[in-house]
């Protein structure tokens, strides 16, 4: 029944294929690279700069060595600090203007915390967030306020991200009101324009969120995020809570809006298939750290980290008639607790390739090919996709 509601509405998505079956069939592996051969490390910093320059990028966000610890307190009367959750631990990446970085990882890997650090809902324990050339890591609430119109968020749960006591009009107008912006033509006209933009009926201005389906609510959240004409949108699992049939529509809507307004996205997901369609680059997180970061095609066709291989093996094959037969890699055990992560390589207790060095020495995130960084002692391509 949710489908019926959404289908009638104008949607930039209508008719487009779903991201999982769509246009980006994975290209064949380059012939000059042996399918399972180890890749030599490119020369660190220089390689990184060259890689970026080659893509002609212009950075909007740069995150360096970002760390967030959540102290764990015990005791009711006397509260003592008994340790810390290393939710985000030394994360670094950059997002170029007009591009999308997909951030993928299992539950608890620190994706949302990374997003909240960049939007400065949280203050980093250490490290820095540079947005549009300005270090915003430790700005005060007051200093942050004007900057907030440039960074907006889209949330995971369309049922909890809209205040049930506010009308749609009030929700979409909230950013303008809080930021004290009065668009030409007035707030009301702007809200109607925004509702139309995301494929909703502007006449629904006075309705309450409980009258809308999950997909429509997510469109309302998107309209709210667009209200102040932001530069960066952090979308934290924007389609995970939605019906599978609606996910593609929302992803396509976001993709269309990015082109239309030159937006930059940090697109968080727990599953590679969801970022495949929309991302230019993809970062894979594991227990608070980035373990692989590459251009989308490089990652999907030439992933180097065993954990990425495991995630990729869970992605549905785009072309079911293909002769590629893929084994699903099933990881043993659960994700260890970020309260007490494994030493050295955090993936080693679950890694089938782990050697002695993996238990004693942490693999640094190194550039192994232009623009392709991996944190693994034994990076190699694998013939899985």
């Amino acid at each position, binding site marked *: 029944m949710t489908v019926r509601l959404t289908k009638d509405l104008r949607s930039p998505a209508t008719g487009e294929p779903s991201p999982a079956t769509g246009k980006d069939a994975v290209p064949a592996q380059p012939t000059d690279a042996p399918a399972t051969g180890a890749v030599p490390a490119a020369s660190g910093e220089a390689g990184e700069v060259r890689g970026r320059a080659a893509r002609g990028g212009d950075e909007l966000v740069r995150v360096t060595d970002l760390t967030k610890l959540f102290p764990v307190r015990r005791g009711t009367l006397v509260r003592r600090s008994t340790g810390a959750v290393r939710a985000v631990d030394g994360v670094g990446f950059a997002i170029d203007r007009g591009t999308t970085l997909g951030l993928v990882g299992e539950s608890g890997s620190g994706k949302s915390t990374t997003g909240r650090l960049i939007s400065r809902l949280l203050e980093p324990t250490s490290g820095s967030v540079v947005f549009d050339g300005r270090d915003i890591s430790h700005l005060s609430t007051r200093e942050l306020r004007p900057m907030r119109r440039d960074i907006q968020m889209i949330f995971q749960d369309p049922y909890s991200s809209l205040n049930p*006591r506010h009308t749609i009009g009030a929700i979409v107008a909230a950013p303008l009101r809080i930021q004290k912006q009065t668009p030409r033509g007035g707030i009301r006209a702007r809200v109607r324009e925004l509702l139309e933009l995301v494929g909703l009926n502007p006449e629904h201005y006075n*309705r309450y969120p409980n009258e809308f389906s999950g997909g429509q609510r997510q469109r309302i959240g998107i309209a709210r995020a667009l209200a102040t004409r932001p530069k960066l949108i952090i979308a934290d699992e924007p389609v995970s809570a939605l019906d599978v049939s609606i996910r593609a529509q929302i992803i396509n809507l976001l993709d269309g809006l990015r082109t239309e307004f030159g937006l930059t996205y940090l697109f968080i997901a727990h599953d590679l298939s969801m970022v495949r369609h929309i991302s230019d680059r993809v970062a894979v997180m594991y227990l608070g750290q980035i373990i692989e970061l590459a251009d989308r095609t490089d990652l999907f066709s030439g992933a180097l980290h065993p954990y990425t291989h495991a995630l990729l093996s869970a992605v549905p094959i785009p072309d079911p008639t293909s002769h590629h037969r893929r084994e699903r890699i099933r990881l043993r055990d659960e994700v260890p607790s970020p309260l007490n992560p494994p030493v050295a390589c955090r993936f080693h207790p679950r890694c089938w390739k782990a050697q002695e060095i993996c238990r004693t020495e942490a693999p640094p995130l190194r550039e192994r090919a232009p623009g392709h960084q991996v944190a693994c002692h034994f990076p190699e391509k694998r013939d899985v996709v």
Partner: protein
Amino acid sequence: MTAPPGEMMVESVTAPAVVPTEGRSLWRSGWIRLRRDKPAMISGTFLILLALIAIFAPVIVALLGHPPNEPHYDLLDPNTATPRGRFGGMSWHYLLGVEPVNGRDIFSRTVYGARVSLLVALLATATAVIIGTVLGMLAGYLGGLWDTIIARLMDLLLSVPSVLFAIAIVAVIPNKAFGLSGSSLRIGVLVFVIGIFAWPYIGRIVRGQVLSLREREFIEASRSLGAGTFTVMFRELLPNVAAPVLVYATLLIPTNILNEAALSYLGVGVRPPTASWGDSLAVASHGWYSIEPIFMLAPGLAIFATVLAFNLLGDGLRDAFDPRGGR
């Protein structure tokens, strides 16, 4: 307690055809439910009438009675000091008869008593609602030390014997204070004392609601837009706690009516000769009830009916606005 009632209605949205053209707010759908609740509607009507009686007491008494403090010794039997005639001296001129000893018009005193009872109970409830809502939101939203202090304070206030405290406070208040004197000072003190011991009931409910609300993403959305603590509390949280606050405020009014009556009964309420239900009850209970039952029944029934009506209305509001029962 994890989600406000709005969530429950999501599933009922099936197709565009059944979606009403105008947005249905919580208040509108609550009102529609309340209207079907007969006891609540009858109680509400009674309370509106009672409020009108209290407001227009001078007019009503001028038409149907005598000034409330006017003695009528001629209507009393000089030997027993009890009213002459049957049923405590009831007649067309004295609808509920007269008091023993000084012959004051019981009807007039009951009508005027409604003023004091309702005024004190409503003002004390308003005080409790304001303090309870603000401190409850602060405790729930800010957490940490704020929460610890406010939560402990609420526990403390709910555990002390409030009537004993009230007697002590009233005893030390002089005849003139805070620019007030006489019965307006007494009313102010009563409101303060009752309100101070009543706000934790509201505070606890608000705190509990806010604790579950603050985890919801719309709070984070508002903060990510640059909203400060004040904006989040009053724009995002308040509309979500308004309905439960209304319900529990309605249920708090009868408690406060009884508190006022109890304090007046104990002699620390409004001062005689100002008419109040609790004071009338106190005087009547000093041995007169067996001889002159109407002297006691009039204020007693007034308190009973008012308390019952507020409780029925409050229950109706709770069912209408919080269908899962907030207790």
